[in-house]
């Protein structure tokens, strides 16, 4: 333990879970720092849901140690619930409720609730205050989910696949609400299937596979650890296509049709080589030169399907 405990919202160490004889979690380790958005990724069946349910106190664990806001979720459920907010994937509302009423009812469940106006402002539902819940759109309902989860002014918010099935506009507004949560200083544990969502929102991600954490770190670190090369592309000059000029030997360049693509672990060195080569061979500026840094999606696919076993 190099960091003081108070800086960590969640500490998971050697977490194990078996259903019957089947091991679902085989020693999961990760920490979530206070105030960060941490995203748990992984293919279906990797153990994401089980991990989150253990952290939320819904499920007892088989082994390992877990601390959430300094509490053990298995036997301090009551005090934990007062300090966390949970947005479950599919969760309904009472049929006749109005937005403001419902949020107020939820506020009454917590010892130190956040003011109603503030809650509605954070999730951008201020003008829907007197609307019937059943008249809200899908995106608005999801933001109402957020408002209910925030009612008790929690330190930590769990978001389980918050934008699954949304149109792009609803997703953006949902993301905006999550950014608002972050700016309130809340710690957020996010699970999602959308890698662009994780890339956009998460400070750090962990990739869970086969009941273990494969990689953890910022999106950049994960991409680097996955060994995904940076892609440099440009329009192949005529001389190169005719074969009258050879590529510099130290670079791996593939030419297909008009497009030349160079994949490299070190973009700066490769670019310098490439430009020097172009100048030396009198090729002028390389047209449509583009440098693409690896995305989380590239890293994820490489780590998860590109095959550890």
């Amino acid at each position, binding site marked *: 333990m190099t960091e003081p405990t108070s800086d960590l919202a969640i500490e998971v160490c050697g977490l194990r879970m078996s259903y019957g004889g089947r091991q679902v979690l085989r020693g999961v380790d990760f920490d979530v720092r206070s105030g960060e958005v941490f995203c748990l990724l992984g293919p279906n069946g990797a153990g994401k849901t089980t991990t989150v349910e253990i952290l*939320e106190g*819904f499920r007892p664990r088989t082994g390992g140690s877990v601390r959430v806001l300094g509490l053990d979720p298995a036997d301090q459920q*009551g005090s934990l*619930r*007062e300090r966390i*907010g*949970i947005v*479950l994937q*599919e*969760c*309904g*509302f*009472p*049929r006749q409720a109005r937005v403001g009423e419902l949020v107020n009812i*939820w506020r009454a*469940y*917590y*010892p130190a609730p956040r003011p109603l106006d503030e809650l509605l402002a954070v999730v951008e539902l201020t003008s829907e205050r007197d609307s019937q819940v059943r008249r809200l759109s899908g995106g608005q309902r999801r933001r109402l989910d957020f408002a*209910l*989860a925030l009612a*008790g002014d929690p330190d930590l918010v769990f978001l389980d696949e918050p934008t699954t099935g949304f149109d792009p506009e609803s997703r953006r507004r949902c993301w905006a609400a999550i950014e608002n949560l972050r700016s309130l200083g809340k710690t957020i544990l996010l699970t999602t299937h959308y890698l662009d969502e994780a890339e956009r929102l998460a400070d750090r991600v962990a990739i869970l596979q086969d009941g273990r954490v494969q990689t953890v770190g910022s999106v950049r670190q994960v991409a680097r650890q996955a060994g995904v090369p940076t892609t440099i592309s440009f329009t192949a000059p005529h001389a190169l296509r005719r074969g009258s000029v050879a590529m510099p030997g130290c670079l791996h360049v593939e030419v297909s049709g008009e497009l030349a693509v160079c994949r490299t672990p070190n973009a700066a060195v490769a670019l310098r080589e490439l430009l020097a080569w172009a100048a030396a061979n009198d090729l002028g500026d390389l047209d449509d030169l583009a440098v693409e840094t690896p995305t989380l999606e590239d890293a994820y696919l490489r780590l998860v399907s590109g095959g550890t076993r």
Partner: protein
Amino acid sequence: MPLALLLLIGSTTAGGTVPGTHVKAQMIFVPSILAFGVIVAAYVNLGAKLATLRHDGVLKRIRTTPLPAGAYLSGVFGSTAATTLAITACTAVIGWLAFGAVPRVGGLAEIAGGLILGVVCFGSLGLALSSVARSAESASPIANASYLPVAIMSGIFDPTFSVPGWLSAAVGLLPVRALAQILQQGYTPVEHAPLSDLLVLLCWAVAGCALAAWRFRWH
């Protein structure tokens, strides 16, 4: 619905006597409809309400709050009890104003005890029902199909309704007739052993609670 039934049955039979006895008909059918009201409000309504809350995912969401499960369910149960008492109060007042059915002074304790035990018993059976029903849509039909035949055979709507002896004995073990008879006892002395009726209600209350606790699901 209990009020409509009260007026319907009352308008056809009030003023007469129960065949073979000197007991005025309204002294039997008014408390019978009281019992019916308890069953509808506590068993059918609570069962359907909880099944709907579960189906809509509201119970699941409640579970994410610090509100203890017991406190929430007690609240739902309490609101059901209040509704039930309001319905029975209306029924009793109309039974008195329209048909002159007034409880015995000495029978108030029986009525109060019967109502409380009735609400607990049918309420817990409603909880159990909501957990057994697969969906919100099926809860109401299951509730109606389970209590209506028993209510008819128990003579709730027509005290002279006759069934074979073995069936009558079986119905006697069910809570519907037991509750009706306790309430009837509050209006007019009838021939039966009130203690055994109380025992039947109590047993069903315990069974209902046990089944509800065993089968209760959050989602």
